[in-house]
């Protein structure tokens, strides 16, 4: 366990003055992840909330070297930076041990940046990729992504007399990444600070690609009061909607099992206004369908973690 009182003595790598929404957990995740290594870090950022809001010209909240290229290619960008570093190191022009890190949202990871990510994973670059999954295109005004959950309202998955929010299940990106057979893959949540820190540390220590998918509740997109960000994240974990697990060289480990304390999915849904139509009696079948899906995914992770 990391002692937070010791951790607080370490330098901050993302400073204040950024314009993320009040209560947005993304910057908390960034602060924690970037403290999980003592080495210098280079950050690549895909287009998204974090990129836009931390670097509004002429300001930047970053205290480490940071690069933004485009929406779809943060993994390709960091691949180039890492390859240049390797070449310079070979020539003796750099002797530091530098870590390479990507932050991208679900838009930049699940959808637009997927081929770039897949390429970088397959080529085996030595980098850490952290997806901040807020389940939609929130920065552009709440449009659905392939990470948006089944039944959720967004501006492009409306609720009306026929359609009741998003019709498709959330893409299981963590499994897609795991299929690349990279050395380290994990799912984490800002509500479980120790677990997230441990995973970030492992990811930095990994030789080769490491990927962490972190759930990042969104105050205006999920529609809940700003002080509830960590609680909403915890309910996602306790309902097993967002299992905390890791895959080290192919071996699955379930990091947290709520056991008896597993809550029904409705307890997570009812806190967020993007799901408020699901509280109506006539939409119970949608909640049931989501519950069945969550249970099946959960049983699958448990089974994979057993051996």
């Amino acid at each position, binding site marked *: 366990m990391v002692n937070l*009182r010791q951790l607080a003595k370490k330098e*901050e790598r993302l*400073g204040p003055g950024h314009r993320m929404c*009040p209560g947005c957990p993304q910057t*908390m995740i960034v602060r924690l992840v970037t403290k999980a290594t003592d080495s210098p870090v280079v950050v690549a950022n895909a287009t998204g909330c974090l990129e836009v809001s931390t670097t509004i010209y002429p300001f930047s909240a970053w205290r*480490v070297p940071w690069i933004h290229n485009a929406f779809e290619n943060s993994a390709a960008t960091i691949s180039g930076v890492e390859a240049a570093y390797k070449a310079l190191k070979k020539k003796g022009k750099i002797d530091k041990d530098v870590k390479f890190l990507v932050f991208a949202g679900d838009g930049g990871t699940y959808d637009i940046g997927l081929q770039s990510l897949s390429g970088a994973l397959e080529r085996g670059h030595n980098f850490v990729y952290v997806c901040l999954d807020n389940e939609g295109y929130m920065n552009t005004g709440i449009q659905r992504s392939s990470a948006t959950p089944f039944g959720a309202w967004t501006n492009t998955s409306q609720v009306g007399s026929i359609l009741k929010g998003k019709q498709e299940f959330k893409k299981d990106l963590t499994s897609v990444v795991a299929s690349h057979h990279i050395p380290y893959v994990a799912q984490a949540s800002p509500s479980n600070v120790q677990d997230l820190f441990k995973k970030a540390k492992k990811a930095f220590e990994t030789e080769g690609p490491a990927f962490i998918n972190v759930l990042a509740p969104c105050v205006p997109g999920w529609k809940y009061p700003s002080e509830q960000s960590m609680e909403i994240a915890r309910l996602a974990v306790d309902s097993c909607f967002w299992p905390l697990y890791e895959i080290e060289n192919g071996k699955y480990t379930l990091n947290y099992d709520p056991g008896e304390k597993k809550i029904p999915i409705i307890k997570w849904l009812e806190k967020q206004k993007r799901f408020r139509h699901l509280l109506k009696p006539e939409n119970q079948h949608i909640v049931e369908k989501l519950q069945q899906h969550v249970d099946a995914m959960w049983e699958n992770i448990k089974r994979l973690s057993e051996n």
Partner: protein
Amino acid sequence: MVTENHDKKGWKEIPIGGIIEEAGNAERYKTGTWRSFRPVHHPEKCTNCMICWVNCPDTAIKAGDVNSPDKGLVGKNDDPNLANFGGFDYEHCKGCGICAAVCPTKAIDMHPETEFLDKEGEE
């Protein structure tokens, strides 16, 4: 709100690619003006666990030391190797209320900013 003037630069003076050359200069942008609720700390209930500090999205809880005037008074708070609660950075705190929500001993509560205004409506 920015608290200092940014002289408009001519195009010849702007770094190529719009590079921002000063790391972390967003600190000069005072997001504290967004706040409508203010976190208030009660040292007599605080154990310096730093859970609020780790959860603050705006780096607005300071990591203090043994001399911090605001340090928690419960438990051990005189170890120089460990941080103590070091007060809020009200220039940047956006008033989200997460610190108050996660504090295990309820040592932080949120007050409307109007409580801190004098009769002229100034802070």
